[in-house]
C-alpha cells in the first residue's frame, strides 16, 4: 500500500540526501577495497586508491640494458630500450640519481660523464650512447617521472580463482553453510514458538537463560567441545571431524540469537489470529507450521541472512570442527592460506574479500523480499 501519496515535501529531498550520505559513508570503505583489489600490489602501497581512478604522475625507476646489450653504431656504442615496458604513459622528466630524479626534461640528454649521454623520450624510449664500449654488467639506473593512465588488472582475481582446490572449498563451504543455516532456524523457530505462545513452568527462566547464553565467548567452548567430540567419536569409531559435527556446532552457537530474535517477533503476532486457529481445531504443531511460520517470514529471513553470513565467513569453527585438511577446507580457509605465512599479500586479501562476498549478498537479495510490509494487514481490527 502506497499509503500517503501526498507526502512529497522538502523532507523527501532531505531523506534522499541523508540516505545518500549514509550509503556513501558505508560504501566508501568497501569501494576503496574494491578498487584496491583491481590494482597491483606495488601501486597499492604507494598511492591512495582514489588516485587510481585518474591518471597520475608517478616516479618510476628503471634500469637500462647492460654491456651485453650494446651495439655499435657509427663508432658510438649504443644501448636502446624502453623504460616503461609495456605500460602506457608519458614521461615528463628523468634523472640518473635517486637524489635528483627529475633532473632532466623528457627528450633532453643527460651527461653521464666520460662522454656518455642518456636520452629518454616522452614515450619512455631511452638511448644510451658512449664513445667507448660499456663494461658494467649492471645497467644504468634511470629515474623517470611519468604520467600514467589509470591501470587496472584482474590478476588478483585470476590468482584467487585459479588457486588449486578453490572449487572444492566452495562446495565445502556450501555444504557447511546451508544446513548450518536451516537447521538452527528450524530448531530455534520451534523453541521460539514454545517460548512465546505456549504455557509451561519455567518459561521466563528459559528466556533469561537464552539471553544469558548469547554472551558465551565462542573460544571458551572450543576445547571442551572438541574433547566431547573426540570422546563420542572414539565410542562410535567414527571420525571426530564431520559435517554433522560442524552443523551441530553452528546450530549450537547460533541458537541463542535465533531464539531471541524469533521469539521477540513471534510474541508480537496478533493474539486473535492464533486463537482463531485454535478454535478451528489446529494443534500447536499445525498452528506453528500453518500460521506462525508463514507470518514470521520477515524474522526468519533476517535471521537466515545473519546465520548464513556468520557461517560462511567463519573460519575458526570450521577449522576446529571440520579440520584444515585439504579435502575439507572451507573457502575462507582456502583463501587465508593463499596469504603467506606472514600475512602480506593484501592484493589477494582484497580480491578474495570480494569473491567471498558474492554468495552472502545473493542470499541477502533473495531473502530481502521476505522482509515485506503489511504481512499482517487485514487480519484483525482494533489497536
Amino acid at each position, binding site marked *: 500500500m502506497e499509503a500517503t501519496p501526498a507526502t512529497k515535501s522538502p523532507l523527501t529531498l532531505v531523506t534522499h540526501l541523508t540516505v545518500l550520505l549514509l550509503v556513501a559513508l558505508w560504501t566508501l570503505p568497501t569501494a576503496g577495497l574494491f578498487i584496491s583489489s583491481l590494482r*597491483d*600490489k*606495488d601501486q597499492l*602501497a*604507494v598511492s591512495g586508491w582514489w588516485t587510481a581512478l585518474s591518471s597520475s604522475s608517478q*616516479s*618510476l*625507476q628503471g*634500469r637500462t640494458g647492460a654491456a651485453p646489450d650494446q651495439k655499435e653504431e657509427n663508432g658510438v656504442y649504443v644501448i636502446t630500450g624502453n623504460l616503461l615496458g609495456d605500460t602506457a604513459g608519458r614521461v615528463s622528466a628523468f*634523472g640518473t*640519481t*635517486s*637524489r*635528483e*630524479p627529475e633532473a632532466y626534461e623528457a627528450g633532453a640528454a643527460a651527461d653521464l660523464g666520460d662522454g656518455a649521454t642518456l636520452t629518454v623520450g616522452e614515450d619512455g624510449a631511452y638511448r644510451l650512447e658512449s664513445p667507448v664500449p660499456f663494461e658494467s654488467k*649492471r645497467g644504468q*639506473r634511470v*629515474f623517470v617521472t611519468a604520467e600514467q593512465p589509470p591501470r587496472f588488472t584482474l590478476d588478483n582475481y585470476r590468482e584467487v580463482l585459479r588457486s588449486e582446490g578453490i572449487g572444492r572449498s566452495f562446495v565445502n563451504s556450501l555444504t557447511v553453510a546451508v544446513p548450518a543455516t536451516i537447521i538452527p532456524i528450524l530448531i530455534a523457530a520451534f523453541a521460539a514458538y514454545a517460548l512465546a505462545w505456549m504455557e509451561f513452568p519455567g518459561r521466563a527462566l528459559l528466556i533469561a537463560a537464552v539471553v544469558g547464553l548469547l554472551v558465551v565467548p565462542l*573460544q571458551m567452548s*572450543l*576445547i571442551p*567441545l*572438541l*574433547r566431547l*567430540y*573426540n570422546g563420542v567419536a572414539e565410542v562410535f569409531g567414527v571420525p*571426530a*571431524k564431520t559435517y554433522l559435527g560442524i552443523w551441530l556446532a553452528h546450530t549450537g552457537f547460533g541458537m541463542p540469537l535465533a531464539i531471541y530474535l524469533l521469539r521477540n517477533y513471534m510474541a508480537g503476532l496478533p493474539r486473535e489470529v492464533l486463537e482463531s486457529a485454535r478454535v478451528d481445531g489446529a494443534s500447536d504443531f499445525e498452528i506453528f507450521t500453518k500460521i506462525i511460520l508463514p507470518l514470521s517470514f520477515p524474522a526468519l529471513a533476517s535471521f537466515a541472512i545473519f546465520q548464513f553470513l556468520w557461517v560462511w565467513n567463519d*573460519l*575458526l569453527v570450521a*577449522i*576446529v570442527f571440520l*579440520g*584444515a*585438511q*585439504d579435502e575439507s*577446507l572451507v573457502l575462507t*580457509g582456502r583463501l*587465508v*592460506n*593463499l*596469504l*603467506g*605465512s*606472514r*600475512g*602480506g*599479500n593484501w592484493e589477494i586479501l582484497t580480491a578474495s574479500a570480494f569473491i567471498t562476498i558474492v554468495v552472502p549478498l545473493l542470499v541477502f537479495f533473495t531473502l530481502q523480499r521476505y522482509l515485506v510490509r503489511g504481512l499482517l494487514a487485514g487480519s484483525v481490527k482494533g489497536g
Partner: protein
Amino acid sequence: QDLMFKPGEDARFNWQSYDDFAASHKLDGQTLTIFGPWRGDDQTLVEHMLAYFVAATGADVRYSSSENYEQQIVIDTEAGSPPDIAILPQPGLIADLARKGRLIPLGDGPRDFIENNYAAGASWVKLGTYEGPDASDAFYAFPYKADLKSLVWYSPDNFDEAGYEVPETMEDLKALTEQIVADGGTPWCIGLGSGGATGWPATDWVEDLMLREQPEDVYQQWTTNEIPFNDPRVVAAIEDFGWFAKNDDFVAGGVQAVGATDFRESPAGLFSSPPKCYLHHQASFIPTFFPQGVEAGLDFDFFYFPPYASKPELGKPVLGAGTFAMITRDTPAARAFIEWLETPIAHEVWMAQSGFLTPYKAANPEAYANDLLRAEGQILTEATTFGFDGSDLMPGAIGAGAFWTGMVDFVGGASAEDAATKIQNAWQAIK
C-alpha cells in the same frame, strides 16, 4: 605430486641419502598428518619437500596450516586430536606444550644428531630441550629451517651514488646514520606494525643489540628472566634501539610513523625515488615483501648487522629463529619423519627453492637457490654465537604480548625504564 628435481639428476643434491632413506623406510598405507606454520607460497615450498618423503616411503602425508595455527594447535592438543607432527616456530609455545605433556620426547638419537651435525649444535640442542610434565628435561623439538635476523638491507646503487660504504662495526653504522642525516637523507625505515602482532620487529632490534652489548649468558638469563627485564643492561639495549628509532631525523616519517607503519611496507622506502631511507633492519624473509621486479644483488643487498668494535670479546653474534618439528602423536610415520629431517636431501630440496636456511653442515651450500641465500647461510654457519629470537624464548604472555606492547609504548614515548618495568611486572604476574 611431482618431484621438483628428478632424483639422481642434479649433482648439488645428496641423492644417496634419499635412496638410503627410501630403502630403509616403508610406510605404505600409513598416514602422516603434519601441522605447520607455512601457508600460501611457503606451503607450496614445504609440500615440494614433503613430496620426496612421500615418494621415499609411500606414506600418505597431509599437511595443513591455519591462520591461527598457534591457537589451533593448542585446541587440537588439548582436545585430544593432535596431528602426528607439529611444526612450530615459538619455543615458548613448545615449552608450554611440553610441560602439559602434549609432546613426545624424541630420544637421544635425534639429539645427538643435532649436537654433532648442526653448526652451533649445542645451542640448537638447548633450544630443543624442554621441561616435560614430570619436571625433567628431554629433547622434544627437532630444529628444521632457520631464519637469520641480524641483517641490514640496503640498495647498493643508492650507496654508490652517495658514496657510502658498508659499515663493519656498530660505531661505523651509527656514524653512517648521522652521515646520511647530514647529507639531507633519512637513514632508517622502521615499521613495527603487524596487526595483532604489532611491535615484534622492535623486539628483534633489542635482541640484536643485546647480543652486541652483553655476553651470551646474560642474553640467556634475560630470556628466562633470571635477570629482570628492567635490569640496567636490558634497559641500555632498549635505549640503544631508541637511539635509532626515537629520533625524528633518523627514521622515515618520523617517530610517529614507526609504530604505525606496517613492517611489510616499511622496506618499500629503500626503493623509492628519492629514497625515503637507506637502511632497513629485518630478517631474511623480508625480500618477499619488496616491490615486484627488484632483483637481489642488483637492486638490493644486505650486510651483517655489525658488532661494536669496542666489545671485541663478544665476537660475531647472530640473532636468528627457526622452526621445530615435534611429535605430537607417536606413530612409526612420525618417527620416520624425524629421521627424514636428518637426511641432507630434506634440507637441500628446500634450499634450492627459496627462503630456507639451515645450520645442517652436511647440506650442500651449493644447493642454495641464489647467492643471497648462500651468503646468509654463510653468516649462519660462521656465527660465533647464535642467539635465538629472545621473544620467542620468553613465555607467550611476554614474548608475544608484554614485550611487543612495551616496545610500542617505548616508541610511543614511554621511557625505556618504564617500558621495561611494565614488562617485568607482567612477567612477575605470570610466575
